[in-house]
């Protein structure tokens, strides 16, 4: 048996097909890593267009005309703010945000005093404020603005709490206090963890944390058609909150899925197509190719039972799948490391465990091994499908096509079942074949499946495909080729 498997491996690894696919995968992995490295997080914002518009408006407006003075002030202030933004670069950066949130209103007051109310004293005050703000920006003191914002929030919070003491039954006040507390926490974190305004990952974490915290409170008021969807949503939000908080508090980047480490951890989502193509390709041709080349005769007149020969081929397909997965992981590790630095891989995988309601750190190899175990049934089932077709119809092209169709059809079947609420779908293979959905106390996509059922369904489908395959292969007449 072992010598048969050895022979099959020899045959597969002397063929060009597998190497070509591996090289394509390699190129793809390298490209993804490079693209993600140079992908700039911040988008460009062209203010020169705004400046032109404001200048155009100003030409037609007369500050001395009382009916136009208001529009004039708006345009003038807009122009000045935009020029200020331009001064700090066209990128979306913290300066832009500070100008928009703070300086812009100061400019508007300045211009209002200057043109509308003509109050020189107040204008001077506003101008002083303006100069101070610009000086803070110039010196890079973004924390000043955070502190200002924090003071405002704390003030609001105090007011709201006082108000609450007088009127006890106002739930909207509870909501407001809850939201203000969240805002306060975000600002505090900004100061503590040095998170400047922007749109990088940390700001994302703050936003996600804030939004999901709000959402999760509102979740109870929402109307869910069933309990399962509610729980599912709740789990997802809880997970996002926990991981965002983990990354903020520990100053880590564990939630990023586009760096080399994230790509490695999500290897089964990122490169799944390649893994499945290779798996199905091997399983779909390992038997039929012997038929098309005539070498099956050579194989079947050796002193082995036909079932043994077929089993050796099936086992070989799975071994090759595992080798391919390992190679893909290795490629991502090495290429990702070269492009983005190997230090990234020192951070463990971070998952939220719903059983203990806690964040769990798992070292990367263990995490990947678990993912592999969870995803393997799906891969093996698709390969078994291709293998069965390959053996029954001795046609590689058909076998590979059907295997890939099975992969692409899976999500469609699931969506249809969701849309039409088909409860029998629990006995179909697609809702069951991804065991990672049960990991870390997670709830499955469908309410009426569970781990035991999934394993049973997977085993039954394997047998349904394999038993006829073995019977037919055992009885088959080898015709003239």
């Amino acid at each position, binding site marked *: 048996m072992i*010598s*048969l498997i*050895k*022979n099959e491996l*020899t*045959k597969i690894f*002397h*063929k*060009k097909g597998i190497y070509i696919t591996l090289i394509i995968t390699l190129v793809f992995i390298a490209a993804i890593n490079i693209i993600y490295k140079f992908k700039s997080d911040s988008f460009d914002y062209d203010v020169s267009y705004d400046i032109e518009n404001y200048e155009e408006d100003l030409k037609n407006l007369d500050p001395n005309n009382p009916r136009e003075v208001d529009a004039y002030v708006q345009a003038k202030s807009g122009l000045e703010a935009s020029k200020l933004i331009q001064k700090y670069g066209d990128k979306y950066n913290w300066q832009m945000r500070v100008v928009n949130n703070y300086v812009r209103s100061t400019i508007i007051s300045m211009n209002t005093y200057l043109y509308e109310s003509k109050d020189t004293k107040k204008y001077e005050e506003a101008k002083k404020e303006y100069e101070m703000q610009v000086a803070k920006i110039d010196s890079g003191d973004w924390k000043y603005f955070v502190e200002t914002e924090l003071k405002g929030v704390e003030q609001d919070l105090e007011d709201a709490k006082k108000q609450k003491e007088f009127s006890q039954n106002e739930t909207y006040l509870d909501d407001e206090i809850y939201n203000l507390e969240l805002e306060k926490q975000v600002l505090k974190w900004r100061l503590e963890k040095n998170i400047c305004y922007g749109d990088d990952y940390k700001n994302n974490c703050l936003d996600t944390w804030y939004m999901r915290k709000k959402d999760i409170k509102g979740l109870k008021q929402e109307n869910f058609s069933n309990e399962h969807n509610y729980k599912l949503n709740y789990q997802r939000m809880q997970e996002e909150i926990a991981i965002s908080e983990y990354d903020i508090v520990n100053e880590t980047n564990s939630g990023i899925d586009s760096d080399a480490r994230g790509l490695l951890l999500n290897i089964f989502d990122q490169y799944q197509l390649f893994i499945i193509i290779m798996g199905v390709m091997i399983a779909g041709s390992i038997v039929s190719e012997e038929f098309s*080349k*005539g*070498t*099956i*005769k*050579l194989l*079947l*007149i*050796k*002193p*082995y*039972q036909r079932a043994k020969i077929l089993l050796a081929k099936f086992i070989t397909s799975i071994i090759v799948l595992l080798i391919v997965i390992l190679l893909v992981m290795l490629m991502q590790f090495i290429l990702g490391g070269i492009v983005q630095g190997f230090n990234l891989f020192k951070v463990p995988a971070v998952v939220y465990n719903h059983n203990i309601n806690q964040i769990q750190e798992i070292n990367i190899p263990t995490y990947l091994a678990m993912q592999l175990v969870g995803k393997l049934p799906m891969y093996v089932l698709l390969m078994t499908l291709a293998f069965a077709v390959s053996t029954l119809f001795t046609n590689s092209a058909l076998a590979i096509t059907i295997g890939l169709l099975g992969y692409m059809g899976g999500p469609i079947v699931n969506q249809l079942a969701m849309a039409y609420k088909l409860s029998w779908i629990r006995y179909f293979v697609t809702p069951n074949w991804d065991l990672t959905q049960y990991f870390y106390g997670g709830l499955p996509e469908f309410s009426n499946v569970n781990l035991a059922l999934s394993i049973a369904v997977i085993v039954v489908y394997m047998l349904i495909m394999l038993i006829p395959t073995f019977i037919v292969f055992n*009885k088959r*007449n*080898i*015709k*003239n*080729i």
Partner: protein
Amino acid sequence: MENLVLSCKDLYKKLGKKQILKGVSFDLYEGDILGFIGPNGAGKTTTIKLILGLQGINSGKVTINGYDIKNNFTKAIKRVGAIIENPDLYMYLTGYKNLELVANMYPEVTKQRIDEVVKLVKLEKRINDKVSKYSLGMRQRLGVAQAILHNPNLLILDEPTNGLDPEGIKDLRELLKNLAKKEKMAIFISSHNLSEIESLCNKVCIIQNGEVVETEDILKVKSESQTHYEITVDNTENINKYLSYPIEIKDNSKFSVSVTREQIPQIVKTLVNKEIKVYEIHEIQMSLEDAFLKKTGGNTID
């Protein structure tokens, strides 16, 4: 009595609606080289596939080295080597790798044995080239190598001379004769080309339309049929009138007659009496092909 290696008893096989084999029986003993002869479509390859267990048997029995191929496949096939139709080789592998794959499936085959066989089929120089670069003759030789690698005592070859040049056929003939003699192998060769097999086999089995027409020693097949004599004379015009034997006039100086040896002096006497000059009489060796055509009555296929 030599050891019985292969025995086929009353093999029947139906593929679709067509009855391919209608009771094929024959035995093959150690050291024998059996020519399995028949026109295309007579059921030669099907018989071989039944022997090797590649196709199921409808009725009848194949026994190899005492084991039934149906019920005891692995034991029966253990000492069998075969080439069916074309040599089944992996084109993308080297010749040596091909042999290694076969060797892996028989625990008793060693590396030395591989080298030995490579030398035997004279492929030493090209054994590390890919099979896709081989000529047909080399592929055939590699096919023989992989078939005899595990020291089988039954070698089955389906149309082994297909596509070989005369030189290649001669080499193969030498190789097979050697194997039968030295290794005491029983060899089963199917062919539609009689003249190539003739000098190789010591037994012949003629199959037609799924039935065995004749199983005999080659010498016997030949001797059973009447011998031809070609006689050269000065004039053949009135020969028909003088001789009452079946004669065939070839031209005005030659004719042939089918008679037994004992009748020749009588013919000469008659001719001399009629004042016909007899210059030459010689016996025409009947080829296996002629004998075969006589048996089967030409190449008709259902």
